[in-house]
């Protein structure tokens, strides 16, 4: 994770961001600390932190640092120039931590764990909004993983982790209208119906799918009662955290973390 010392709405690169709708720095810090507390104390996760960098307000969203698996790290190649400046900081961090860093070609846009997530057997790769579908062919080779590209069609759900959340028991939270018909079919054919929860639109807009799942715990934004009920019924403990300051930038619990492997 990366502390929100320099977090703010300094540009508009998704429909949630409005420079006129500025985040409150103190509030953001409090909410971020609440998230770290839940992760560390309620769930028992080990957290590592990277240094915030002035002028990089979105560095706080470490899900977009890249993807890590089996000792290899593929850092993101951001589509927007505003975020491309983050790339070298993530690369530095991965390198310092001893990962084998594999750099994608420039212009093969790929926004890390924000767009690539799934189950041990296969991953889903969101494309069309931010990541380029061609990146998944390369990543599939790098990680020896089956990657099923799914097309994202709603600008509000610009990263896959804003509208899909795989859970550790093989279940899935998702918001079907964020995907095109082919992707909806692909998701439905890979995850059984009783293991899929289609979050209602009101909770999808609260970023219910931008949740962090550790073992049987799920950390998600507040204001998602139906999702919480479903999680409870399926043996998960939901941990709601107020993260509205980050929603102003189009991010929530999942965007604020990167699972280290």
């Amino acid at each position, binding site marked *: 994770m990366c502390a929100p010392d320099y977090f703010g709405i300094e540009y508009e690169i998704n429909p949630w961001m409005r420079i006129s709708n500025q985040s409150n720095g103190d509030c953001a810090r409090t909410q971020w600390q609440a998230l770290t507390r839940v992760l560390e104390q309620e769930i028992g996760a080990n957290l590592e932190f990277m240094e915030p960098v002035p002028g990089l307000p979105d560095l706080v969203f470490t899900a977009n640092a890249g993807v890590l698996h089996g000792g290899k790290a593929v850092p993101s190649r951001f589509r927007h120039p505003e975020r491309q400046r983050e790339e070298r900081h993530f690369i530095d961090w991965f390198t310092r931590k001893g990962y084998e860093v594999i750099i994608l070609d420039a212009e093969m846009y790929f926004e890390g764990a924000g767009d690539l997530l799934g189950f041990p057997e296969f991953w889903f790769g969101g494309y069309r909004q931010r990541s380029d*579908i061609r990146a998944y*062919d390369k990543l*599939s*080779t790098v990680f020896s993983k*089956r990657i*099923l*590209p799914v*097309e994202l069609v709603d600008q509000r759900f610009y990263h896959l982790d804003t509208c899909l959340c795989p859970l550790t028991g093989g279940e899935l939270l998702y918001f079907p209208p964020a995907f095109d018909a*082919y992707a909806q079919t*692909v998701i439905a054919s890979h995850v059984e119906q009783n293991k899929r929860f289609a979050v209602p639109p009101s909770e999808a807009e609260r970023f219910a799918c931008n949740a962090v799942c550790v073992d049987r715990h799920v950390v998600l934004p507040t204001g998602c009662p139906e999702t919480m009920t479903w999680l409870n019924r399926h043996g998960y403990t939901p941990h709601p955290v107020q993260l509205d300051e980050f929603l102003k930038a189009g991010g929530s619990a999942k965007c604020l973390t990167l699972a280290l492997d």
Partner: protein
Amino acid sequence: MASQTVTLQGHIIDSLILAKVLDTIVMLGGTFTLSEVAVGIKREDPSHATIRIEAPTTKLLQDILTTIQPHGAIVETEQDCTVAPAPANGILPEDFYATSHLSTQIRWQGNWIEVLQPEMDLAIVVKTTPLSAHMIPMGSVRKGDLVVTGRQGIRVFPLERPKERDVFGFMEAQVSSERPHRHIIADVAKRMKSIQKRRQEGNGSAKVLFAGGPAIIHAGGREALAWIIESGYIHILFCGNALAAHDMEASLYGTSLGYSLGIGRSVPHGHEHHLRTINRVREMGSIQHAVTSGIIKEGIMSACVRKSVHMVLAGTIRDDGPLPDVITDSIKAQEAMRAALPGVELALLVASTLHAVATGNLLPASVPTVCVDINPAVPTKLSDRGSFQAVGLVMDSSSFLRELARELGWKG
């Protein structure tokens, strides 16, 4: 019609990406051919597809490409073919492109042009004024000819299934003596009738080519073949010295290589008959003259002369004589055979290993071909040499010809 080839790579099958791209092409008004699909073996292996897209206009093609590119379709960049001048007469430049007998195009200054008369194992020469490309044997190339090199800017089209639903529609060179022959022969007869009908109606110059060996005479197929020729079903004959010599020997002496065709055993001094026949025809100056002067009265050669069948007789080292019409320079014989091919729409290769393989090598893959031999090794060899379109028929040549003639209306 505008066209462009694109490729797709990755987990494109179970993610429905391939389906989506194909649906999109059709939805926008284009058509596609999946020229290659390689499906990954293990679940984590990627798959690969090559898609050729066609659209009625360049604008529509561009729209299709723009729409499918975000789904991973990579446009194959097309480049002109490369050429190099032949360094000397009969010598091709290094890295020359070796042809197949499939329909082939080359890209020249941004345009795709058809290479004329496809044939396997040749080179492609480009003429700039007027622009044309044709296939050429190594020995015929002249110093300075522009010869296509490398592989870029060349596209080869797989054989399309013929519209007629008959034995040639399967395009499989399976050879078996255990397959029923009847329907194959019936299909061959149907094609021959259809070609003859078109010719009689004055439509086009479709031709039937017959290449045969002397076993036809020995085995008793002579009468049936002569009838087929006399009835106008065959327009080109490729053979060697022997078929012609034994056919005319039969006409003059009633024997084939000394064996009486009537009583089925050798006759005294019969082994001289073919030599005396050849000598007689040599004296006449040509087979044509031997027939028109009334010396050769009936049989295959006689029918060919009367029906103006285009004959190419190619010689070999074993030949006696040979007959005056035999071309003894094998390169010149090959050239004469090649020159006879335009317009051929059906080829029958009967009872001759050498002529079957030689003719097969010259024919484009698009020509329906039947290879008949009592020895299964012959159709197999033909197929091994690349003539995959040939239908193999393992049977005695005489039985084949008699059955074919009956299908065509022979009462013998």
